[in-house]
Every structure is written in structure tokens, then in C-alpha cells.
């Protein structure tokens, strides 16, 4: 059993890899830019930090990677986790320094957080509470999130899925923000589970034992 963390030059993959290793048990965790390795993996993880357009360009610049992901994740239905911008890339469109097409796996758009309280700071940075939506309460990866569980967020843009049931959990920053989105074998977290101490490690563990 292999967990593939897709390396396309975006940010620090070491923390994600270390966090997965902590909960992986017998599985091997690989950080890879090789589409064949991704194609053969049992779990696919797409991290990402920075701007939507840059990440998209970086991902598409890895020859064959998006095809390999489409094949394993969409056609074969292997469990997929997107983290932060990796989650945002699942959307149809990102509006950040221009408009950029996403993977289109979850219908919706990524755009700037629209604060209703002007004293709040951007980026939305720090620990915020998670609140489950009905689809999250029923989801094996998120169902054990409790009312006062906090996760670590760092972002200025947020994902707005068209279908409300694709939002599994929200957080609030003067306005509701999608914290976990997903459908079928796809799940994504706006926050960083690899930086969210026990709450984050538990989510990663749930992801690895998930049989969508």
C-alpha cells in the first residue's frame, strides 16, 4: 500500500510526508513527481501553497501528472486528498491574479474571502473551529470531528462549491468558509491537517482507512 504525495514544486512537502508517516502504519509514503508512481499508488495526496494560478501551472508542467491523476482518481476512484491550494485546485475555476481553470472535479469557484468585518486580517491565519455540515457528519473521514476541534488555516482565498452537499465542514471568519469539501472518493481540506496537531493527524488517519 502506497500513499503518493504529489510533488510539483509547491512548498514544503516534508511536513505532509512526516505527518502521513506518523499515521501510515505499514503503508509506504512517497513524495513523488513521477506520474507512474502516482498511477500505482493507493492514496493520492495533492498539497499546495501559494497562488492558484502558480500551483495550477506547476502541476500541469509535470509531464503526464494530471493524466495520471485523472486515471487513478477519477476513473479508478482511488481516495484523493487535496490540502490547501491542492484542495482549491479541485474546483472548476480559480479567480486569483486572473482566471485559471482548475481540475474541475468539484463544481465551484475559488475566490477571495469576502470579509464582513473590516477589522479582521487577511490572510486568515491561525487556529479556527470546524463545524460539520450534514454531509460531513455522515462522512467517514470527518465524522469524528467534534464541536470544539480546531484546525490550522493559512489562506486568503476560499472555495465555494456549487453543490452545498459538497461542503463537509465549515469554519467562520466573519463569513462561512469551506473547511472540508468532497464528493465520492474526493476530499479536500482548506486547513493544513499536517499542522493541526491531534485533530489533523486523526483526519489523515481516517483518510487512509477510508474505503470510498
Amino acid at each position, binding site marked *: 500500500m502506497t500513499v503518493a504525495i504529489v510533488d510539483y514544486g509547491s*512548498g*514544503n512537502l*516534508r*511536513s505532509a510526508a*512526516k*505527518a502521513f508517516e*506518523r499515521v501510515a502504519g505499514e503503508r509506504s509514503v512517497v513524495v513523488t513527481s513521477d506520474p507512474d508512481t502516482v498511477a500505482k499508488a493507493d492514496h493520492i495526496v495533492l498539497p499546495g*501553497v*501559494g*497562488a492558484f494560478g*502558480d500551483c495550477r501551472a506547476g502541476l500541469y508542467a509535470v509531464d503526464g501528472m494530471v493524466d495520471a491523476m485523472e486515471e487513478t482518481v477519477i476513473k479508478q476512484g482511488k481516495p484523493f486528498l487535496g490540502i490547501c491550494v491542492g484542495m482549491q485546485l479541485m474546483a472548476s475555476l480559480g479567480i486569483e491574479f486572473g482566471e485559471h481553470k482548475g481540475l474541475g472535479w468539484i463544481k465551484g469557484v475559488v475566490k477571495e474571502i469576502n470579509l464582513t468585518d473590516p477589522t*479582521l*486580517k*487577511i*490572510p*486568515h*491565519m*491561525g*487556529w*479556527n*473551529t470546524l463545524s460539520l455540515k450534514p454531509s460531513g457528519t455522515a462522512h467517514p473521514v470527518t465524522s469524528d470531528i467534534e464541536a*470544539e476541534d*480546531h484546525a*490550522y*488555516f*493559512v*489562506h*486568503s482565498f476560499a472555495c465555494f462549491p456549487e453543490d452545498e452537499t459538497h461542503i463537509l465542514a465549515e469554519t*467562520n*471568519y466573519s463569513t462561512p468558509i469551506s473547511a472540508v469539501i468532497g464528493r465520492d472518493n474526493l476530499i479536500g481540506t482548506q486547513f*493544513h491537517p*499536517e*499542522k*493541526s*496537531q*491531534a*485533530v*489533523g*493527524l486523526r483526519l489523515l488517519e481516517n483518510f487512509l482507512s477510508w474505503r470510498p
Partner: protein
Amino acid sequence: MLKARIIPCLDVKDGRVVKGVNFVDLIDAGDPVEQAKLYDQQGADELCFLDITASSDNRDTIYDVVRRTAEQCFMPLTVGGGVRKTEDIRKLLLSGADKVSINTAAVFEPELVKEAANKFGSQCIVVSIDAKRTGPNKFEIFTHGGRKETGIDAVEWALRMADYGAGELLVTSMDKDGTKSGYNIALTKAISDATSVPVIASGGVGTLDHLVEGIRDGGATAVLAASIFHFGTYSIPEAKAFMAKAGIPVRPIEGN
């Protein structure tokens, strides 16, 4: 609701933890990784390593400290001190740092902040602002641990750095650092009111009241402290309980 963050900071020299009073008279007190694990267990919201004499000392020790910490602590880690070029930032991020703070180099080469934010994303670029009071409600940027004045106004500088892509500002009062007399609230507030990015208050914490003041009066979204935690004067849970009692929203300690 977003919570105020408590960030213990470890001053590191040659891979060992130190803490100075006004940046001199350093006292050696332990292994940074052991300290980091303790703070992690105690429920600190983030960790900060400041490689204080990195400009002149053996630089590579910090990468090893960061690497070992990142293997054991699953929480955000900021590393600063002696960061001069994008290559330094890249190496720290690859070692396992989540954010890198730029101080002196930003003053001498402001474009570095722009370049770094473009290359790695604003979320990992912290600009460290060391300021001293030079007149009534007038603060100026100082470099080299507070020894060199620059003539740059602190608030103008903060605005420029935010504009260049800093994702966060670490504001340290060089008058207050090591004095245990509390943050410089006027400085913290001037910068947090003027800018739209999160501000971390730093320099001068002696009591838990000071942490409350940094958030409530200074408008910071995070408070950084070194010696009160490092020397065990207070623990992170004590700090959190105190802040919660004062009406500041904090993340409860996990498992409690």
C-alpha cells in the same frame, strides 16, 4: 472563530537554545528540539526559532534543528535570523519550516520580500520589524539586534512590507525586549491599525497580563514570548487559561 495564537520563541545559537537580555549576556539552556516537543505537548499554537547570531556563525546547524523538529512537531514552525537570500528561505522551507522571517535583509534589500512572496507565497513570508521609540509615538527600524538605526519609520515600513507581500508582521520593540515590562503597545497598535496583515506582538513579556495586553490593546492576532515559557515562569496552559479568563478567545488545550 479564529483564536489568538500563543507562540513560544526559542533563540537558537549553534543548534542550542539561548535567551539574552536585550540581546546580550546569553545564557545557554538546552536542546531546541526537546523544548519544541514540550511546547507542542503543552498545546502551543505555533513555534518560532530565531537563529540569533546566524549572520556570523555556523549557519547549517539550524537546518538540522528545523529538520528534527519538523519530524516530531505537527504544528506551524517559523524560523528567522540571518535570512539573506531566497536560497536561504528555500533551504529552511525544505528542512521543514512553514514560515521564514526576514529581518535585516529586508531593510537592506526590500525587493527580497517581494521576490520571496512571489516565489514561495505570502503565507510563508514573515517580515520581522525591530523598532525603537525615537520620539513621542515615533518608532524607527533598527537592525543588528537593535544596535544600528536606519532612519526608517516603523509604520511606513510595515505598510511597505505588507504591500510587497509579507503574509505576517512580527513586531518587536527593541526598547522592551528582555525587560519583562510588557509589549510596546503603542508600537504594536500603530502597526496593526495601519496594516491589513496579521501582526505578532513581541519583545518584553514578563507576566501573563502582558499577553492579554498584546491582543486586547495592541491589536495583535498572536503573541510571542521567549523567556517566560523558556525558564518555566509560566506554562502554555497557564497562559491560555489566563487569556481565556480575560475574555480573549484561545484554542483550548487538546485532551482537556
